């Protein structure tokens, strides 16, 4: 067994042990490990080509709301946002070109939300997706304060609407965010936003396995060198942008 293999084995073992020890809290998703993501068979990532993202298009946002029952309360202070559209314009260029793009959880390799979570309710799944165990979240909101991308929203009110029964019903008092549609990935589908973006013909999103050298996303990153937002923070986001 090589040195790296042995290390990987020990880490996997520790992850399994941790998973066993924390077992009864896990009801939605299983297995957790921050490290070793790069060595996992699958590590999901998303590239967004802002040049292709239409300013008027919000198909990704709508698809996410439908898929994940993300509620709108008609009050921007409390509305849930798992993915949102933003328009950015250079501050110091008069009439500078504006760019439209979606913002969502970046599923960081070093997620500060996970680091600050007092109950370890936020965890990294084996395929690199950052998830929240909503049965363990106490609603302290430290993660919202710690996230530099404002990717998390708090459930300020109960929402009765539950159109898609494939995702858990939400209850107030916990924090939520994009799951990369983990429930769809587990069925072999792509995230709802990606599917909608492709269907709409914009084709601004490429989703795939970062660890698979044959994947489209892997090729795209090699050729186009997209980058993460605020890479100076060192969080290693797995959502990358081209044309920003």
């Amino acid at each position, binding site marked *: 067994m090589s040195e790296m293999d042995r290390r990987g084995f020990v880490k996997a073992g520790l992850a399994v042990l941790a998973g066993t020890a924390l077992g009864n809290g896990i009801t939605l998703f299983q297995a957790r490990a921050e490290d070793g993501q790069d060595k996992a068979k699958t590590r999901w990532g998303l590239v967004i080509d802002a040049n292709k993202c239409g300013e008027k298009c919000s198909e990704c946002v709508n698809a996410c709301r439908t898929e994940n029952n993300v509620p709108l309360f008609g009050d921007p202070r409390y509305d849930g946002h798992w993915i949102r559209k*933003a328009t950015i314009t250079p501050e110091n260029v008069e009439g500078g070109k504006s760019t439209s793009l979606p913002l969502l959880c970046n599923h960081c390799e070093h997620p500060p939300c996970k680091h600050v979570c007092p109950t370890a309710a936020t965890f990294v799944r084996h395929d690199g997706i950052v998830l929240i165990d909503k049965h363990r979240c106490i*609603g302290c909101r430290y993660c919202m304060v710690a996230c530099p991308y404002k990717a998390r929203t708090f459930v300020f009110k109960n929402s009765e609407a539950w159109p898609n029964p494939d995702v858990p019903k939400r209850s107030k*008092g916990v924090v939520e965010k994009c799951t990369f549609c983990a429930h769809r990935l587990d069925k072999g589908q792509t995230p709802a936003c990606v599917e909608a973006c492709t269907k709409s013909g914009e084709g601004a999103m490429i989703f795939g396995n970062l660890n698979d050298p044959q994947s489209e996303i892997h090729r795209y990153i090699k050729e186009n060198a997209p980058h993460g937002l605020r890479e100076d923070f060192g969080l290693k986001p797995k959502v990358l942008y081209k044309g*920003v």
Partner: protein
Amino acid sequence: MKKIRYVALEGTSGGYIALLGALGALSLCGFWAAWTMFQNGHHVTGMTNSVPWGFPIVVAIYLVGLSAGSLVISALSSVFGKDDFKPFSRIAALLAALLLIGALMSIILDWGRPERIMVPFFHMNPRSMFSLNGMLYSAYVAICFVYLWAMFKENEKLVKRLGLLAVFWAVLVHSGTGAIFGFVGARELYHSPLLPPSFIAAALSSGTALMILVLYLTFKWAGKTLDENLLKQLGGHLTIFLVVVAYLILVENLTRSYWPANYAAQDFLLFSGNKYSLIFWVGMVGCGIVFPMMILFGSSARPLARTLFASALVVAGVLAERYIIVIPGQVLPVDIFPGMKVVSDFQDGVIAEYSVSSAEAIYGLGIVSFVFFLYAVALKFFELMPETEPSKREDA
């Protein structure tokens, strides 16, 4: 040194009953506010997705800080050998524990799911400052109570050891509390290595100031004589703490203001004329540091009155300081695209609105009242107050 006998308060006077009634009623209002938040969700508060931490967190760290001063005053005799302060040691140790219990309540009742109170005990995250502080705070309360128990047993050796442990633990508790904010790299007004030490400094200033007021009022209302020189000595300690607080705040803000990347944030905090700069200059700097220093240093006439007035200002000023630690850092939007103007449906790039809602104000007032309700009840049932020659009996 003369042995001090401690006695319980008689607690039968009309004034005492009225005080208990008022504090009890305010506590109930606070619990009602907490229940309202729990029942309806946090939209009854001023908090939003942009400002997820509101007044309950301000109150929590305020109470954590106040607890430090009490503990240090309690330890003055047992650890630092200042026997003159021994009459205060029991009261001060009790108040240190109660204030921290209040802080814990303010944090926990503000959770979205306070009924999951046991979860953090079973699932810890050693990297989380909240998780660590949960352990530090709980242990601190326990240490304070054991320390108090040792005082009741008059086991001097044990008192000294536990006092030392409690002081050391208080340093951990207050550093940890500062680190909750200082360690957050995502927000430019939070991220600072100076927050843990400046949290300790402000804790000592506000805690000493609170103890000066509490001791004065407790002894006065209980009709007991209090050596005013001791309060004036505490006032002397207070000035030293104020100088340290001022120095740390100055260094932190100069450091941040020096680097152009922080111009916008510092301008927002210090010079924009909004409510935050007002609270910064008038509340935190004025009430919390400058006015009390002027009063304490200004003249030597009526020293007791000056000490009491300065203490009241510091107690109010440090509440402003805690507000400035918690709120402006969230109100300023996270800078996802430096150098770009951002527009979205989610208030990206917008300076967020926050004001303390009535539910939050009642919540804060209720928890503080509850702390003093417990304090007043404890005075009646435990031998906490030193026996003195009765002075003019007023309310007791």
